[in-house]
């Protein structure tokens, strides 16, 4: 369940929610009894990202020079093409960096839910299900990885949380 549900009274809660879904609720509670969710978002530093893209892609460099040498209107289609090249380069980086982050953190996690980042600078947005007694290990793995990416990737950590992203309840009675 993702959102709170409004019900008419205690009796309805007892019958419609608890009794009707008793087995399922119990299974879910057992599944998560010792686990928490940690939400991680890794975001690129824009300048550093652009620097890397330019340094690593000769065609971006060439097109960039060409665009800069022209007045803005004349270079319209070239700018679109340049942006497309940059966009693709960023996509490749995102894949590689996401894989590296997941490789570092997955060993400490029990489950994983990858979300879609909300804007172009997001490298990874993911929820990890972590056993409570492994949380410290998870945190350390993240700190270690983040240190290696300082100046390039910024990490935001939200948690520990209830396992919002991992709970599944089927529909209907």
């Amino acid at each position, binding site marked *: 369940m993702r959102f709170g549900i409004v019900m008419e009274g205690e009796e309805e809660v007892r019958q419609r929610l608890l009794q009707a879904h008793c087995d399922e609720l119990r299974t879910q509670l057992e599944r998560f009894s010792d686990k928490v969710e940690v939400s991680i978002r890794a975001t690129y530093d824009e300048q550093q990202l652009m620097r890397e893209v*330019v340094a690593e892609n000769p065609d971006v460099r060439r097109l*960039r020079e060409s665009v800069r040498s022209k007045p803005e209107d004349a270079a319209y289609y070239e*700018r679109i093409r340049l942006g497309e090249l940059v966009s693709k380069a*960023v*996509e490749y980086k995102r894949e590689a960096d996401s894989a590296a982050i997941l490789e570092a953190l997955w060993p400490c996690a029990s489950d994983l839910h990858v979300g879609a980042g909300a*804007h172009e600078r*997001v490298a990874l947005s993911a929820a990890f299900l972590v056993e409570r007694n492994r949380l410290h290990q998870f945190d350390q793995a993240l700190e270690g990885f983040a240190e290696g*990416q300082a100046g390039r990737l910024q990490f935001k950590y939200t948690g520990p949380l209830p396992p919002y992203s991992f709970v599944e309840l089927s*529909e209907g009675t």
Partner: protein
Amino acid sequence: MSTGAMSRGAGGGYVQRSSSSGLAEVLDILLDKGLVIDVFLRVSLVGIELLTVDARIVIASVDTYLRFAEAVNRLDLGQSSDEGLPQLVEDMTSDGAQSKTKGVLEGAKESLFGSSDDEEQNGEEESQSSSRSRTSRRGALRCALSQTTAPRRWSASSSSAS
């Protein structure tokens, strides 16, 4: 920064921690899919959900390309430790490019979505962002997006599968 975010400063200094009880953080996570599932509604929500996941195959928009072009154009390369780009030393002339570059992608995002920080507020924004062509992702990440295969795929190499 969203109003609920507070730096705990726990552990090392490389990870920004957020108060997990902040409303903004909780909503952020709950709204990640941009889809509300009311367990008591008798609608074929499962079908819609699958469609939503598939629909995240995003076709990058021209606007996004232009934003990227602007970001890379305004980049002041003179500041970076880049070997092999001597021809771009001319970019060191300061015209305020650095401060502009920093905000180009963010500024565009603000003008589109009206948010004042760099946290996503709403799953609907996903459809307007570019270059996240999900079907082009390879390997584990692609599997991770499919809700059924991700845990199995990763747990094959891990001893911590639940």
